[in-house]
């Protein structure tokens, strides 16, 4: 039984259909990576899981619960958080206000404070900058804030949309290491990435999307060995 299961998902923006029947399963505790070129529909897939865009057909289940008809705020409450494309931190709010908003759906103050302590352990720089406006952080710090903010809801499933975008390689390594640590605490992840190498190294399994369809699905190691994947997403590793 998958924790997150997408079946036959169709999504349209106005009259244009951009997802043509996506099937995707994520098991409990897994990290699943979604690869694909620009415009393939990766972000749209994540946004529809979070309920920010609505399916025109198909279904999304979290465990036994159908969530594709729920409003976005209710889906967070069900246990799905997202680190959106472009981070979208609240720039004119402080770091700590951003984090507290991440826990908006939670009521128990003591436990929320505990989670906050955990986030500050994961990303000590955020503790240092807790009173600073989020808009004044560097790109990497904003990415950490976006991840920390999403974790504040204590999600069962964490959706990450290109967390490595625009960051220096060393920083990407550090962040991915932290993601591994978070996964070790039992947080299931869907990781959308253009940085296929880093993503496949971290993920257990992967999907490849093209033009609104899933074209490939396999374990990470098998995908890394796949010549087509190598040519298209790993910069033709065999040739080098």
């Amino acid at each position, binding site marked *: 039984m998958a924790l997150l299961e997408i079946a036959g998902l169709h999504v349209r923006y106005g009259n244009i259909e951009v997802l043509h029947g996506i099937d995707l399963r994520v098991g409990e505790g897994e990290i699943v990576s979604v690869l694909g070129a620009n415009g393939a529909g990766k972000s749209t897939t994540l946004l529809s899981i979070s309920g920010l865009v609505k399916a025109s057909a198909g279904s999304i289940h979290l465990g036994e619960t159908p969530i594709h008809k729920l409003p976005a705020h209710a889906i967070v409450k069900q246990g799905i958080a997202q680190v959106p494309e472009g981070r979208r931190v609240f720039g004119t709010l402080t770091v700590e206000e951003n984090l*507290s*908003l991440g826990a908006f759906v939670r009521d128990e103050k003591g436990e929320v404070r505990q989670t906050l302590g955990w986030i500050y352990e994961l990303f000590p720089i955020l503790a240092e900058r807790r009173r600073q406006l989020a808009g004044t952080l560097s790109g990497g710090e904003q990415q950490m804030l976006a991840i920390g903010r999403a974790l504040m809801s204590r999600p069962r499933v964490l959706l990450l949309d290109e967390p490595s975008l625009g960051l220096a390689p060393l920083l990407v390594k550090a962040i991915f290491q932290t993601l591994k640590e978070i996964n070790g605490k039992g947080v299931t992840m869907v990781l959308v990435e253009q940085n296929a190498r880093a993503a496949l190294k971290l993920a257990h399994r992967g999907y490849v999307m093209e033009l609104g369809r899933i074209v490939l699905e396999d374990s990470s190691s098998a995908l890394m060995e796949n010549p087509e994947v190598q040519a298209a997403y790993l910069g033709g590793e065999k040739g080098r």
Partner: protein
Amino acid sequence: MEQFFLQLTNGLAVGGIYALIALGYTMVYGVLKLINFAHSDLFTLGAYLGLTLLTSMALTDRLGPFWGTVLLAFMVMLLIAIVGALLDRVAYRPLRQSPRLSAVVSALGASIFLQNTVMLVYGARFQVYPQGILPSTAIRVMGLDIPMVRLIVLCTSTLMMLALFFFIQKTKTGTAIRAAAIDQGAARLMGIDVNRVILMVFLVGPALGGVAGLLVGLYYGQINFTMGWGYGLKAFTAAILGGIGNIPGAMVGGILLGVIEAMGAAYLSIAWKDAIAFCVLILILIFRPTGLLGERVAEKV
């Protein structure tokens, strides 16, 4: 010098009223990017409902001037808040997914509707707030004779603004309102129900505007169904002056505008009072296009 300080208190009192109204414009704009043209008519309605409650329930006779007025203010706030929420439900919410221009047209329609309703119910002539509700005496503060009413207006608007500031800055709901004003999509990803935020904004903004109407009635003693036009324009100016969408900005902008106007009227020319206020606005917008407090931090993309 005495003249200066008297004008200053007058400017602060009027500015506080501008600020209270400006807050309604700026909160709605912050979340919906919509200018609620009907807001000035909620202000007018506040003045009229205040008058009706005052004369029909004899609150100040029963409870004394202080508690009577306090209760009156709360009743006006409650009623106008309900009208504000209804306004959103009827005039704006059905158009949430439509092009922005539709909502603007709807706002204009709602404004005309409310203004005409007030006129039909209360008549087109000036109405007079009964005298002697608030003490007409002056109070001596640091060698100045300041009219009691002026102090009451000042204190009320200050208290309201402090309460709002606390609500917006310190409470969970307030933080959610600020988040939704910055990025609605991201706010929804936090589990914030943006519809509830919008409802909240349409309760609080009109409540403050309604109290401002009541204060104008108490301060000047006379109200008219067209009063929303002038005050609305000034308050809207104040909101832009402070940076539209920015809550402290609306407070600063309103008070500044009131003081500038009072000083201009006292030292330059009463006839040019409005022109002076708008000149200041234009100057500030030339040098700070986002208003005084608007968008201090550019968001990194």
